[in-house]
């Protein structure tokens, strides 16, 4: 007999699809969510007694649909509601004939609607987690460190905007698709980044955001097999996630890539990520996520830090800069160039960036300058740059790291004197 946890796992797997179908049938997001919740409650009651049905997703869909039908009938005092109930019955019959086809389209519709750019970014993220991933409002609130009522309000407000502003429930037509798909991928990547930034002590839901983002990217890749950037994003996430455990030491301090224990990287994840990236690249339509994944793959597949193919990484950053002209990407390229061609070449690029006034408040600019100056034995300038970086660093972990580096640099100086 299934445990509650097993039933909960089925629910997480299926709820997005079922909610999506119910929204198409009823046009009512709240009704859809409530009926899916109720269907799940019924499963918790029945499945331990009767066993898990042969097709749990179909069972839950039918149950949720019947519950919706009942509720619409009961509240069918107005003609409009009656019409909805009639349409719902029609839908049920049609779906019964066509089997599962169309169900995946519903999920895709739901994903694109949740990530519509007319919604605020935080609303897109929350709505995707709530309706597509099936997380509870309390869980999402914990994951984003806001009080539950705040998150509940954000969700209500997003659903109101969809209804009142007329955000269409559909996959965007061809001419809008590239831009809108970019928006969907942006939401998934943000989800992943939130989870990646979570420390070991953080709430488990928050730590679980990475797994959730990887799962959603997998779902999207299945639904849109012809879009290589979707696979590229999933590969990027897998390759980063493989190194998650090795990033921080027992005290919660940052361990640089070059100092990480490569044995503790998740080899299966690395293999899955590189394989996925290969299938994406074979399409011959590279994009920023594929290029970033290729950079991550260079790191993840190097047997040791010394064997990293920095020339290739510098080249990839050069391509990325053309796709995303951003000073942060330029800074990363400078680091790769420094590793490939020596610190002086890298420093020249960093000085150029600093001279252009870009990234004036970004701590990694002076931190990178400091690092390169130190390698060139320009110790005084290095120490000054570390101090500049310290004043800008946003987290304790990073301040501790920079303080250690500053102390080492001052040590260099004393050794020489």
């Amino acid at each position, binding site marked *: 007999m299934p445990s509650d946890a097993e039933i909960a796992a089925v629910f997480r797997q299926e709820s997005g699809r079922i909610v999506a179908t119910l929204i198409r049938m009823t046009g009512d997001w709240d009704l859809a969510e409530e009926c899916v919740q109720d269907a799940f409650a019924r499963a918790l009651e029945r499945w331990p007694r009767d066993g898990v049905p042969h097709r749990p997703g179909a069972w839950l869909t039918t149950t949720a649909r019947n519950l919706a039908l009942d509720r619409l009938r009961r509240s069918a005092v107005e003609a409009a509601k009656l019409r909805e109930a009639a349409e719902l019955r029609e839908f049920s019959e049609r779906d019964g004939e066509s089997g599962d086809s169309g169900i995946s389209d519903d999920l895709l519709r739901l994903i694109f609607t949740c990530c519509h750019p007319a919604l605020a970014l935080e609303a897109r993220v929350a709505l995707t987690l709530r309706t597509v991933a099936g997380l509870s409002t309390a869980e999402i609130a914990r994951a984003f460190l806001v009080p539950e009522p705040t998150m509940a309000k954000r969700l209500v407000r997003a659903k109101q905007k969809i209804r009142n*502003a007329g955000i269409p429930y559909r996959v965007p037509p061809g001419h809008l698709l590239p831009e809108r798909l970019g928006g969907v991928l942006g939401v998934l990547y943000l989800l992943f980044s939130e989870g990646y930034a979570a420390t070991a002590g953080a709430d488990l839901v928050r730590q679980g955001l990475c797994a959730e983002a990887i799962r959603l990217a997998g779902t999207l890749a299945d639904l849109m097999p012809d879009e290589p950037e979707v696979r590229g994003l999933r590969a990027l996430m897998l390759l980063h996630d493989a190194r998650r455990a090795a990033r921080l030491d027992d005290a919660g301090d940052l361990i640089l890539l070059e100092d990480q224990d490569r044995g503790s990287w998740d080899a299966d994840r690395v293999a899955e990520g590189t394989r996925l990236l290969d299938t994406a690249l074979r399409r011959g339509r590279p994009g920023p996520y594929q290029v970033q994944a290729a950079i991550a793959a260079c790191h993840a597949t190097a047997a040791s830090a010394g064997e990293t193919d920095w020339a290739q990484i510098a080249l990839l950053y050069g391509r990325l800069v053309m796709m995303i002209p951003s000073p942060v990407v330029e800074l990363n390229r400078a680091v790769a160039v420094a590793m490939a061609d020596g610190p002086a070449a890298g420093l020249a690029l960093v000085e150029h960036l600093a001279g252009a006034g870009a990234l004036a408040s970004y701590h990694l600019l002076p931190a990178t300058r400091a690092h390169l100056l130190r390698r060139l034995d320009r110790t005084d300038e290095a120490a000054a740059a570390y101090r500049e970086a310290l004043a800008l660093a946003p987290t304790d972990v990073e301040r501790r790291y920079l303080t250690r580096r500053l102390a080492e640099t001052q040590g260099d100086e004393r050794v020489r004197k």
Partner: protein
Amino acid sequence: MPGEPERLDGSVLRPVRDATTVRTRGDEVLLSDGPFAETREYIAGYDIVECADLDEAIQIAARHPCARFGAVEVRPFAED
């Protein structure tokens, strides 16, 4: 001969929280949730359009000359 002053037309809009602000910069159409919120905002004019959904309205707004240098705020009418 001057006529009596009279109300010609008017309608209620949905609240600003249902607004979407549209800006066109180069080839890119930038959307933001909510009303146009610059420090010195003013309304230069209005267009009334009939659309099936928000995407259609955005498409029209993005082509408006004002969307290139300023912004166009898309607001649905309140339903009657």
